């Protein structure tokens, strides 16, 4: 129990240092841009494919349930609500935790094992600001953008499925999809993913940056990054949903 608390304390201090250092120069804009491309742009294909596939499958299931009640016209709205409020943010968070979290953990652990981090320090460069802060900030910015992509891809996937089942027009599908979706349903869940981004960036950087076990540590850092990031995203999701309901009572369906 003591070691778990010690670990959580150490992880929290690491996260606090990221937030603190992010506001003081030097600002690593070049590294931030590089990481944004690596974390955001290179995840787009995965997010697009997952969004369309999930949207298509969900529409099949929704149709088979709603057809019993003669409520198939609600499929677009159910689909959009589900994606924008919960499925998009959570699935995007978990997918990025898998792709990016393992990458950050492994890269930093490898840099530690091959003395590249010591090399940066020996050049009078703050390795934490140079390597960790830009990665976490890139995760914080990339996650909401990727989530929006995921949401829209989910809606497109749902439309494709519905088009083949009922030949609904794109205009009608989209009109129905967004008829019940207010800003209170849309903005907080997307912003919630910025917290997921912080979790992914901080946890995976923590494991990568602090490992000191040579080559063995690289694999362990990657695995631990994915497992703990995913777990914390799910826990944070539960907590943040309660916060969103409290702050935006309109968003509670």
């Amino acid at each position, binding site marked *: 129990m003591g070691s778990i608390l010690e670990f959580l304390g150490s992880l929290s201090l690491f996260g606090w240092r990221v937030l603190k250092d992010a506001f003081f120069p*030097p600002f690593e804009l070049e590294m931030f841009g590089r990481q944004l491309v690596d974390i955001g742009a290179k995840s787009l294909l995965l997010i697009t494919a997952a969004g369309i596939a999930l949207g298509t499958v969900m529409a099949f299931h929704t149709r088979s349930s709603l057809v019993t009640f003669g409520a198939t016209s609600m499929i677009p709205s159910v689909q959009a609500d589900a994606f924008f409020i919960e499925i998009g943010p959570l699935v995007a968070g978990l997918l990025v935790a898998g792709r990016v979290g393992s990458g950050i953990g492994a890269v930093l652990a*490898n*840099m530690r094992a*091959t*003395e*590249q981090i*010591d*090399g*940066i*320090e*020996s*050049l*009078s*460069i*703050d390795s934490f600001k140079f390597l960790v802060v830009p990665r976490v900030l890139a995760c914080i910015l990339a996650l909401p953008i990727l989530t929006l992509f995921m949401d829209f891809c989910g809606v497109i996937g749902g439309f494709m499925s519905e088009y083949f089942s009922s030949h609904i027009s794109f205009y009608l599908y989209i009109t129905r999809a967004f008829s019940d979706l207010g800003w209170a349903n849309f903005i907080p869940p997307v912003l919630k993913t910025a917290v997921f981004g912080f979790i992914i960036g901080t946890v995976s950087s923590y494991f990568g940056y602090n490992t000191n076990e040579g080559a063995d540590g690289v694999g362990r850092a990657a695995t631990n990054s994915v497992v703990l990031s995913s777990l914390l995203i799910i826990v944070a999701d539960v907590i943040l949903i309660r916060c969103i309901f409290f702050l935006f009572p309109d968003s509670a369906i």
Partner: protein
Amino acid sequence: MNETKTSSEKNAVRFEHVSKSFGPKQVLADVSFEVPYAQALCILGRSGMGKSVTLKLSIALMRPDEGRIWICSDDITQLEGKPLSEVRRKMGFLFQDAALFDSLSLYDNLALPLHRLTKRSWEEVEDSVTKVLKQVGLEKDKAKMPAALSGGMRKRAGLARALVLEPMVLLVDEPSSGLDRITASEIDELLLKQKEERQTTLVIVTHDVHGARRVGDRFAVLDDGHLIGYGSAEEVEQSENETARKLVSER
């Protein structure tokens, strides 16, 4: 206090009763030595005897459990943040495997500290990088990524990066490890040139006695965490300690 001041005027690096342990294993026990300006100290010893730790302590990548380490007139064990950065600016470090940044080209590896730590223009940075790469014979390879460099080239690239900020003190970890005799000799030549032409103080950890005797002015022999021999090659060769004599002897 006066003694310390006089000593730091003469010495670029000075260890005072330094001890370091990792868990139950003591890797350095009450080690003291000094390296005068523009001289080279070669640290010899069997593997795992604390030689690389000594280098990392010198640049505060690790902290000693006890003792003080002076770099010029600063006790580096007491420094953090900006003052530590300023002392590190005077130092260069050639790591055993060069520790080049995988994601940057050779040119960018060298340009990074210049952009970050100096106010030089892009043209001046390019001139400085090209000049240093020329010194180590890699001017035609500046666009290459570290993965595309051979072992010898990586070592020379690591040396170029360590030299790019024109350090007063250069720490060198195993300059000849994994290299053939000719390439190792070229590296020794570069180090010798650095010491003689630029008056750089060198602290070299090595297993290569031949190279060490060529470059070094003083020798420190570490065994089981203790300094068992210290002085010129001749002095260590006449030491009462058999291990120290064997490690310094070319025969």
